[in-house]
């Protein structure tokens, strides 16, 4: 019974039911090959959801991840055009992403501006920076080197590198969250900031670290995104930040901070990814698709709210029955 009550178990069950429903309408969707394709396609969402999870755990939110992704992706494509070798491009994308995340983090930490306002601003600035870099021009498939495009697609043991990267980073992230002081600090800061201060954790510094982490992941994803779709322009991944937040919410990351698991975030992302990949093949009118995605999010949040409706902590046991 306790197993069924755990959020992750419910989500896993929901994913299985979803797959069964899709399979009844389009059996080819659940073939291993196609599911591997879905995992690959969902990798960017998983990576960003992990970063966003760290930020949300610390009572913040990062709306600039998609713009960060787009800027880093564009810079990666530009570097490739200059003939920079791929390992350096990867480092540059991750480094730039971390720096952009650090800008968010510093503004939140040192100036104490609410993160939603900071990242709303930097989101626009980062998009604008892409326009300044390129003048609005596109970088297209034939302008990218073969190696640049081939890396995320290279297949190792049945899965493309892009999916393997997601798997590795999920494992690393789980270790970070569960086994390191920084990971525990994310929960402490979000759960009870005052208590965290008393235990010697700097709230601002922890939030800063979360933003840098989210930024670095967005930078890496930027390269993967541009290489996968073989095109870079100002508006890539437009509106993707909302998908990322939705994945976290569906995954049970408490928007007020302090609660949530890596497994939840990953499954939240997978849930959205499966819906996104299934809608085109199950033959549902495109006019309904957005409504269906939205309903899935609402239902998940309703579950969240029900799960959290605690009876309240009873402080005076003896006083409980008197009233």
């Amino acid at each position, binding site marked *: 019974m306790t197993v069924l009550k755990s959020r992750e178990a419910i989500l896993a069950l929901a994913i299985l039911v979803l797959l069964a429903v899709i399979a009844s309408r389009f059996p080819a969707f659940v073939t291993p090959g196609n599911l591997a394709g879905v995992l690959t396609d969902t990798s960017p969402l998983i990576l960003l959801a992990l970063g966003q999870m760290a930020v949300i755990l610390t009572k913040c939110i990062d709306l600039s991840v998609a713009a960060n992704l787009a800027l880093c992706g564009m810079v990666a494509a530009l570097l490739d055009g200059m003939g920079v070798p791929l390992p350096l491009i990867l480092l540059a994308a991750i480094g730039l992403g971390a720096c952009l995340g650090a800008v968010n983090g510093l503004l939140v930490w040192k100036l104490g501006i609410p993160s939603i306002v900071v990242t709303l601003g930097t989101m626009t600035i980062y998009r604008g920076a892409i326009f300044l870099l390129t003048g609005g021009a596109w970088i297209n498939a034939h302008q990218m080197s073969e190696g640049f495009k081939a890396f995320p697609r290279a297949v190792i043991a049945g899965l493309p590198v892009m999916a393997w990267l997601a798997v590795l980073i999920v494992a690393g992230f789980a270790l970070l969250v569960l086994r390191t002081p920084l990971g525990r600090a994310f929960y402490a800061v979000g759960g009870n900031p005052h208590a965290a201060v008393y235990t010697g954790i700097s709230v601002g510094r922890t939030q800063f670290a979360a933003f840098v982490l989210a930024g670095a992941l967005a930078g890496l994803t930027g390269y993967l995104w541009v290489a996968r*779709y073989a095109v870079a322009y100002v*508006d890539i991944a437009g509106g993707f930040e909302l998908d990322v937040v939705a994945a976290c919410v569906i995954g049970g990351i408490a928007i007020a901070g302090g609660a949530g698991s890596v497994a939840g975030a990953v499954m939240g992302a997978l849930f959205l990814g499966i819906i996104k990949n299934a809608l085109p093949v199950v033959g549902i009118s*495109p006019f309904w698709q957005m409504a269906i995605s939205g309903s899935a999010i609402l239902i998940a949040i309703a579950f969240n709210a029900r799960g959290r409706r605690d009876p309240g902590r009873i402080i005076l046991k003896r006083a409980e029955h008197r009233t």
Partner: protein
Amino acid sequence: MSILTKALTTAAMATALIAGSAQAEDMRIALVVKALGIGFFEAANKGAQEAAEELGDVEIIYTGPTDTTAEGQIEVINSLIAQKVDAIAVSANDTDALVPTLKKAMQRGITVISWDSGVAAEGRQMHLSPSSAPLIGNMIIKLAADNLPEGGEVAVLSATTTSTNQNTWIEEMNKVAGNYPDVKVVGTVYGDDLADKSYREAQGLMQTYPDLKAIIAPTSVGIVAAAQAVTDAGKIGEVNVTGLGLPSEMAGHVKSGASKSFAIWNPIDLGYSATMIAYHLAKGDATAEPGATIPMGRMGEATLDDNTEAAMADPFVYDESNVDEFSSIF
């Protein structure tokens, strides 16, 4: 007495000079573009020069502001009025803002037409669009049909469900679909002009319709994403991607074979036709009124509709043979 003589002589001299210079001078047609340094308009200028050479007695003044603002264009047009050019052909940065200045030009006897991006009807004598919705609708299905001698299933990948342009083109396409009986349009999906969603929708189309022969994407984001999806699915040669795109964005996919051909307006033809029309209007051997036809040299004739607008031609088809030449232009 001597003063009067002098004055008269001067006046006579001046008249003679003005008349003389008018005789010797070529007709001057100003091609005003949205901004200088944009490949698309440089190409239009190339077409205008071609028209000038063909006509012989025409000088093209290629000009425009340095950034795409209506204010910049107003300054440029004012100076053209001061230079007393014979005709102005403008691709406007704003439909309404240029109207007063262009009216002033027309009052001074200058022929004013707009092309590519139009101005309101009272600010010009006629407008030349690169193409029209029925022509585009016909072209996109023709592109698919031309590469399917035996016919087969095709699907449309559009932008958003509410994009006016795409919806109009697809509607026009469906009207003429009967002319291509072997081509079966099996469905329309929407990629929302997002690379990732368009890619996923294209993948979905290939899964849903295993016999799919072509994807028609009348949107520049969609056509690139669909071509990449076909490439990644290893279906080059089986599924042909076509529609509307830009040569610079599609060059790689045409070379890989994912797209055999696609269409978009040809800026060279557009500059050429605008110059031809401006020439004939300024010379007075054609008038800009509803129903009139104006010759455009090698591009045929422009027929004006009730709003004195005309469509130049079918969208220009780009394939392996010419995509490289144009990919450096736009």
